[in-house]
């Protein structure tokens, strides 16, 4: 690891079946990009990869390897020479693979053939930044173990670069606690334009915009289980869309849930991106 950028973590599909012990799911925020990166280098689709954030990442190969960079588009270089984004790339021993700052989106995924072979904790190699389980965020100078290559890279022409979305559209299935909010709050949520707050992280996509008002006579909600995509509304009224490192239980009411299919785009929504909710009729 030459340069970890602002935040680079090891991620796979995360932890399943341990939420009742208070263990967050973790895992790649953009599961489509995670799977694609692995397929390009010939890995098992669930192998552990690197998830970088905005500013990219640099690695020196200690043995010849094949890498693929997908997710947020960014310039890719091997020892200073331009290399393709969205296709397998050979990195000879001693060469530096550099992924630059993203041109749009937030999270880049770097698969390495054989997969990142850090020790699995509770069935996953993912870093969980809420509870500190799994490998810590990567630091310069760190050596990453790779597993044995399991398949052949898929030598394709580079994939087309995704276009930056002008606006993030999130479907919202109301409940389980929509009855904790005023009718006005639900109307506001369905019609307002929010923007992605710069303090968003792997725990949640925090939004700026009109606060949602709770009904006055509701008191405090006893802690209850939380799901991926839950839109929790803390006392300041500003909605938070829960992402992979969300807490397993919470005491603020959830006004609705964003379907998992829409969270891939949420994981790539940069601070300042406008957000609209399409409230479903359920």
């Amino acid at each position, binding site marked *: 690891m030459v340069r970890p950028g602002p935040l680079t973590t090891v991620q796979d599909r995360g932890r399943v079946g341990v939420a009742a012990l208070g263990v967050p799911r973790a895992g790649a925020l953009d599961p489509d990009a995670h799977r694609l990166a692995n397929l390009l280098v010939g890995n098992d689709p669930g192998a552990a990869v690197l998830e970088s954030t905005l500013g990219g990442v640099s690695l020196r190969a200690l043995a010849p390897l094949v890498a693929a960079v997908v997710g947020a588009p960014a310039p890719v270089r091997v020892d200073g020479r331009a290399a393709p984004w969205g296709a397998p790339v050979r990195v000879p021993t001693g060469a530096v693979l550099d992924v630059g700052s993203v041109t749009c989106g937030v999270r880049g995924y770097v698969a390495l053939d054989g997969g990142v072979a850090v020790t699995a904790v509770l069935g996953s190699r993912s870093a969980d930044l809420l509870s500190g389980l799994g490998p810590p965020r990567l630091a310069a100078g760190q050596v990453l173990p790779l597993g044995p290559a399991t398949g052949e890279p898929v030598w394709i022409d580079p994939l087309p670069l995704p276009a930056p979305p002008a606006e993030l559209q999130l479907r919202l299935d109301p409940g389980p606690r929509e009855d904790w909010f005023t009718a006005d709050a639900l109307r506001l949520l369905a019609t307002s334009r929010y923007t992605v707050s710069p303090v968003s992280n792997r725990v949640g996509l925090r939004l700026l915009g009109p606060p949602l008002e709770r009904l006055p006579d509701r008191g405090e909600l006893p802690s209850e289980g939380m799901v991926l995509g839950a839109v929790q509304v803390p006392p300041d009224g500003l909605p938070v869309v829960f992402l992979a490192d969300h807490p397993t239980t919470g005491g603020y009411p959830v006004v609705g849930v964003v379907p998992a299919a829409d969270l891939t785009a949420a994981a790539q929504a940069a601070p300042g991106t406008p957000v609209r909710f399409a409230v479903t009729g*359920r």
Partner: protein
Amino acid sequence: MTERSEAGTRTVRVRRVGRSALLLEVGSDGEVAALHAELMRCQSEGLLGRVDEIVPAARTVLLDGVAQPELVAGEFEGRRLEPLTAGHGPVVQVPTVYDGADLAEVAGLWRVSVAEAVRIHAGCEYRVAFCGFAPGFAYLTGLPEQYAVPRHATPRTRVPAGSVALAGPYTGVYPGASPGGWQLIGRTELPLWDPDRDPAALLTPGTRVRFLAVEPKGAEPKAGEPGAGEPTAGEPGAGR
């Protein structure tokens, strides 16, 4: 809708949580315990179809990663459960040195001496109602209602691992050092969390628990204190 029976129990209300999760809501800790036990039984017998997570909490049990939410919702909506008060399986003993920074304050809130507060806390049997906040952090019920205490308005920035603490009706034990707003009454050296153990948490939902008052390790019996080796009275400040 929910309704109350003469016994005070409620029927199960099922709330939809997105497309593949259900929140099953009841009226009390005891009903959550009964519902959780029933769900675990149904899952082990393969009656629920695929369900990834069964997460009990204060008044609810969340089912997440449910393959057939309609079917499961129909099965549980409107069911009435006899509250379960005791936990199951053997009792986990938690040897505890009652010397927490807030023990005197808790005793004051309870209007008893520190020694009596320790006797009250160590005299109850507890049950793990649910986990949350951090991996392996268990919320234990069992302390009688009148001993509920508020949490600190300003949380401590660092609570040491193994701290035994109170908040609301719950007793909790911090598995690792973390910020926390609970009232600290003691500490244990029991390893509560070990990812290499199965299950990784010592205190899983439904587990029966007792706190056993012990002296700090290497503590010398003090002159004029014949009670050494007996349940400790904690820090000076007793006899309020």
